[in-house]
């Protein structure tokens, strides 16, 4: 995203949580350093206990809240996924490619979920899906930085239709296609039960090539 676009978009909950987290970290560090310098050998005096209360008690509680929110929210961003360059860059490149007709690129170009396109299609609905995505992401980051991943990436399990239906179920264009519908005009049972995968008809999800050594290439 260009700096100019970032500037007019500034002000989201993520932006504020990052700013507050940075401010709290600086405050805590400054108070600790100040108490060590100004109250040398008097770390248990009544006056310095107030500084400790702020640096070790109150501010850390706020840091926990804002910091965790910032990390969890930032982990949903496309740029976070793209930081694993060796594995994810080809997927991100395809998503950003103007001429690509992959599902990822089309969703991205339609600004379906600005800034969080990867997360929007790869995290299940609800808090359960969020937690599962975070845990899975944690494992992926660990594997990436320890070099224990296999070159040809694969989904941990078949892509579930519920990931598509969480948004498309009820959408006019989706519901206008008879092939999507079952008895009574609701979503087809075949789709709900994953008997027929959405990506069987709407492939490819990502337009990438697999090289001879098993690595993905854009």
């Amino acid at each position, binding site marked *: 995203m260009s700096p100019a676009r970032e500037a007019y978009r500034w002000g989201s909950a993520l932006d504020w949580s*990052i700013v507050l*987290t*940075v401010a*709290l*970290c*600086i405050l*805590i*560090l400054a108070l*600790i350093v100040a*108490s*060590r310098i100004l109250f040398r*050998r*008097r*770390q*248990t*005096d*009544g*006056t310095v*206990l107030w500084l*400790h*209360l702020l*640096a*070790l*008690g109150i501010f*850390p*509680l706020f*840091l*926990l809240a804002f*910091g*965790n929110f*910032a*990390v969890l929210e*930032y*982990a949903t961003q496309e*740029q*976070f996924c793209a*930081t*694993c360059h060796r594995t994810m860059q080809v997927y991100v490149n395809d998503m950003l490619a103007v001429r690509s007709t992959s599902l990822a690129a089309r969703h991205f170009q339609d600004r379906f979920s600005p800034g969080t396109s990867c997360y929007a299609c790869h995290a299940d609905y609800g808090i359960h899906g969020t937690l599962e995505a975070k845990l899975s992401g*944690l494992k992926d*980051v660990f594997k990436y*930085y320890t070099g224990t991943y296999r070159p040809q990436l694969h989904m941990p399990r078949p892509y579930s239709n519920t990931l598509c239906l969480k948004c498309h179920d009820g959408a006019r264009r989706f519901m206008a296609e008879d092939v999507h519908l079952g008895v009574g005009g609701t979503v087809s049972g075949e789709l709900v039960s994953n008997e027929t995968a959405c990506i069987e008809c709407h492939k490819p999800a990502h337009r990438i090539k697999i090289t001879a050594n098993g690595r993905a290439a854009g």
Partner: protein
Amino acid sequence: MRWKTVPAFMRGDWRSRAVAVAQVATGFVALVGLLGMLTRNPLLLLGFSAVQGLLLVGLVLFILVAIFAQRTFVLEEYDPGEVIFQEGDTGELARYVYVVKSGEVEVIVRTPDGSHTAINRLTVGDHFGEMALLRHAPRSATIRTLTAVEVFKMSPSNFTALYTALPGFRQHLTRIMEERVVGDSTRARRSS
């Protein structure tokens, strides 16, 4: 500087060490969080999430220190030539009472001509600092260490509790204070 600081840290009383550990734990989390947020490095961000338990360690240690700090003696250590408190000091920190555990300190007062003179020496078992507390006045003298010194520091509330609850202790202190006032003024006159 470093070799000198570490042994002093190791010899300090447990409350000071607890504060230091709490500060290191909390400071480490804050530092990782700060670097993570500024660099947006996934490893630092996940590390920040992973080490947040240390904030709880810091909080628990702080609560322990806050509970016990005002109730008991605190052992403090000074190098030779350090000032424990200054003549004229006011405020809460100027109301603590000290008992010498080891070493020797000198009592220094300002003479009418503005110079400073040592009027007394205090050693193991001697106490100082109670006059400012009992008279609700600024410190009447400066206390400077002559050797490496260990002192027990008693909080004002703790001292007051002893002073009011133990008549013998009160009488002993009153007598010593009277002797000191007379002796100090005599010595100050002589030295000026």
